[in-house]
């Protein structure tokens, strides 16, 4: 599928399209960064309410305000925000309310890798298999397999991720007792041994499986539809008239061209994929960002919630940016 000439490394990365995307990404990052700062200030009343300040004496209230930094001017607070989050390491996103005095960063930095593991593996599998399946379906469109898959894909669109997770737990963990229903490991994670990795993968199997079932059909559907369009293009008929083999036509030309919109789609849908992953984590008590967000939401742990929102947005931003890079590398028509 990828001949030697299909990639053109460093020179393409200098393209103006990519530069434009970098600038956009930075702007968006900045906007999200500022939004993240603003949110807690929209309802200061409720922030205080969470700490039960209605029962506090005025002196205590002042002390609390000072501790939370809410008694300074807005611009002072913003400067402090930038200093805390950008200029210190580890970044200071505040202190968790519910798990006082553990810093927010500690909680988030532990949860983040788990989420990355879950999302990374599940999307890698779903996307690559989905794209191949989509290519095959487009080539054999109209067949029973094609119609069946179309039905499945359309159905999967509306399936809530946590519901699917529940059903899978019910079937595999409770009824069949094949896989464990919860957590990411049994016992405490002590080292990075092979046994530990095996343990993690065994526990992660169901969550990953859930996400793959959920996302693969959608990837396949988008790829299939795009490729059906590509197959109608004149150059495909010209390629067939040149006496090229079927495999070459399907993969080397049609799929290769149809791949580009599939990449953009992955990027656009990443926010939804992430949200779905969070909900799956909750069901499986899988200790990632989703699990953390649920716990924090119920406990009204605002600093943690805001940090999770921030990092979630960052993940989406990074995913989009990586997709932009991939697109630049794969599509020679992107302007120099």
């Amino acid at each position: 599928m990828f001949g030697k000439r299909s990639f053109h490394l460093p020179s393409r990365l200098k393209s103006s399209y990519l530069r434009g995307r970098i600038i956009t990404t930075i702007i968006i990052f900045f906007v999200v960064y500022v939004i993240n700062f603003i949110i807690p200030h929209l309802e200061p009343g409720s922030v205080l309410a969470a700490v039960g300040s209605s029962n506090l004496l005025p002196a205590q209230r002042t002390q609390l305000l000072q501790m939370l930094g809410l008694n300074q001017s807005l611009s002072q607070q913003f400067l402090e925000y930038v200093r805390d989050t950008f200029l210190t390491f580890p970044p200071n996103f505040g202190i968790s309310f519910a798990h006082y005095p553990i810093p927010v960063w500690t909680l988030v930095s532990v949860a983040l890798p788990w989420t990355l593991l879950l999302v990374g593996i599940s999307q890698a599998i779903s996307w690559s298999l989905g794209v191949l399946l989509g290519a095959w379906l487009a080539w054999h469109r109209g067949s029973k397999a094609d119609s069946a898959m179309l039905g499945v894909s359309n159905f999967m669109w509306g399936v809530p991720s946590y519901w699917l997770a529940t059903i899978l737990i019910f079937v595999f963990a409770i009824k069949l007792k094949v896989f464990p229903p919860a957590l990411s490991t049994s016992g405490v994670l002590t080292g990075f041994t092979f046994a530990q990795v095996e343990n993690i993968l065994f526990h992660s199997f169901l969550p990953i499986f859930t996400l793959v079932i959920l996302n693969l059909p959608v990837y396949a559907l988008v790829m299939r539809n795009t490729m059906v369009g590509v197959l109608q293009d004149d150059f495909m008929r010209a390629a067939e008239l040149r006496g090229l083999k079927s495999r070459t036509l399907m993969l080397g030309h049609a799929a290769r061209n149809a791949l580009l919109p599939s990449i953009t789609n992955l990027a656009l849908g990443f926010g939804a994929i992430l949200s779905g992953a969070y909900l799956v984590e909750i069901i499986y008590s899988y200790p990632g960002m989703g699990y953390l967000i649920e716990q924090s939401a119920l406990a009204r742990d605002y600093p943690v919630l805001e940090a999770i929102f921030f990092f979630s947005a960052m993940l989406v931003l990074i995913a989009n940016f990586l997709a932009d890079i991939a697109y630049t590398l794969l599509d020679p028509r992107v302007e120099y």
Partner: protein
Amino acid sequence: MRVLGWFSALWRYTKIVGETTSGKIGIGLTAGFFFVAIFAPWISPYAPTATSGLPYLKPSLAHILGTDDVGEDLFSQLIWGTRGSLLVGVTAAAISVFLGVSVGLVAGYHGGKPGEVLMRVTDVVLVLPLLPLLIVIASIVPSSVFVVIAVIGILSWAPTARVIRSQTLSLRARPFVDASRLSGMNDLEIMVKVLLPNMLPLVVLYGAFAAVSAVVIESGLDFIGLGSISNLSWGIMLYFALGRDALLRGSWWWFLPPGLMIALLGTGFILLGNGMERIVRIRS
């Protein structure tokens, strides 16, 4: 009068959509759900919050889906839940589509600096992960369906805006637009009376997507426990199902149907939307 024209156009489109099997299924499902939602009081065997039996009953003739932990009939809840879910889906989708189309039309038609600015704003909104943001907002503001609907609507118009904008850009150059301008129409009239009707199938398609994701997101919010309990929806049912140990008890008749309904409603909308997309493809 113009609105009547739109309705007759939609009727025509619906008939075309109904030509394919998948289109028929889409129309059937969607119409079915609307029917159930509207006629819930007459279809439902019991009131959803009335204790009509013993708790945790298995499905039987009296209670088709059994009862929940306080003895309320689950089947009735499922029927009434249609209202809650459909309300969220349709309203949020309407807001989202309205905003998306407005932004898209203006950005595409006027172009230039204001267009660029609008598209930058769209890019930002596009990136925001909806569920985490909703969770943050929902934990600050006391739970209310309207807030949820509003937030979903206000944050999910970006994909629609993008598509409408590129459509507007390509239609703008067509001669019939110039003709309209020469005949004295002002910009707003051209956008609404001339360009928009041409994009109606696309609008419905993206409306369908918006509706599906709104229902799914709202149910996710309910499931976490941040939804409004007063608005009975399938998401709320799932919240209670999992919270009251339906999973541990193996009461699959409790947690299976609500999610299935969400999926089927989504399928109905999507198939409807696909049918509309077929119209767009056939036309071009």
